[in-house]
């Protein structure tokens, strides 16, 4: 039931909008989120965006992987 991939917001108007991943677009509701805008990545579940992806945190996690490689 979970779609565990982050999708990018292409269009947003009030609490409805279009998100996209790998060329696939989908209409979703933004009723469960505050402060999202076009270009943000969101986690989508059953037709609703349930959380905004924190791009800074994503990059920090990727940095951690790189650090591990350096010490190995």
């Amino acid at each position, binding site marked *: *039931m*979970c779609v*565990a*991939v*982050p999708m*990018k917001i292409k269009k947003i108007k009030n609490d409805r909008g279009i998100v996209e*991943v*790998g060329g696939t677009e989908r209409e979703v*509701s933004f*009723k*469960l*989120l*505050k402060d999202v805008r076009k270009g943000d*990545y969101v*986690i989508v*579940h*059953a*037709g*609703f965006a*349930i*959380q905004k*992806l*924190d*791009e800074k*945190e*994503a990059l*920090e*996690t*990727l940095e*951690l*992987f*790189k650090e*591990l*490689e350096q010490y*190995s």
Partner: protein
Amino acid sequence: MKYIDEFRNKEAARTIINSIRQESGDKQITFMEVCGTHTMSIARFGIRDVLPEYIRLISGPGCPVCVTPNRYIDYAVALSRREDIIVATFGDMMKVPGSSSNLEKEHIKGNDIRVVGSTLEALHVAKENAEKNVIFLGVGFETTVPTVAASLMQAKSENLPNYFVLSAHKTMPEAMKSLSKGDVNIDIFICPGHVSTVIGTEFYYPLVEDYGIGCVVSGFESLDILQSILMGIKQVVNKNLKVENQYTRAVKPEGNPRAREIIYEVFEPSHAEWRGLGVIPNSGLEIRDDYSSWNAEKQFEVNVEATKEAEGCICGQILQGKKIPTQCKNFGRNCVPDNPIGPCMVSSEGTCAAYFKYKVDY
């Protein structure tokens, strides 16, 4: 694809696997995941195959369809037999066996059952079929519940008279506590990533403090899971159990407060029956009285058949981590995804379905 491919990098995976081998020594450590999407990711990425044999990964009750007891399916089947009712459901529910039938069989017989991808679609079905009563089957954990709550708020605000929800919603923390008290030895919980986007991380602290089980909230890509396992191993080896968040890009300590507000506007905590785990206090959500006009349980009386469990199915024990699918005599023989005996083989998030699809052999 951005934020996906980078989290599946092979070089980084090799490095983490080496660290896992170095850190763990030869200590036996058992992890339990309690999210169906984790169950599938672990099987799909072949995570078990790259871990030392003394690191055990067992699956818990993370598949919402699987933990739904037979009586609920029987109730939905009975509702679908009424001429005035359209049942709307997520596709996962269609093949789940009830005591003597299932929704797919009822659909073939001609009962009006619609598969929807969201509650918004279910609301649409209600608006398009004003002469019928549309009942959405509310099955799912904290990730799904706000989407169902939002649909009920919309139905109320629009005064929609023919949309209803039959709720079997469940919440994770009390179920995890119940497992912690049980006789399955768990060192580390891999905490459910998307449930945690909603509930945050604070609910996991009692598992560490009261039950001595470490917690790592994890993402769903291969590197996420491997890193979470490494974090858990370090907790055990260093005797420093805690709540850690690997999935910081999606999970905030406070979760999603707006989603929780919407949940508790419509639902209130209740006892809930879990397949395999029995009745767990405060582990369910029932529709508040303010919304009883849209509560299918309050609005429709049907005769529900006496519950009968499938013979020889060990789904209940699998959901508690007491057994694995390959220990079941039905698994892969007379119980396969196209012809399942129990719910763990039906759902795309079920442990048996994951073992079958990805040929997991332990």
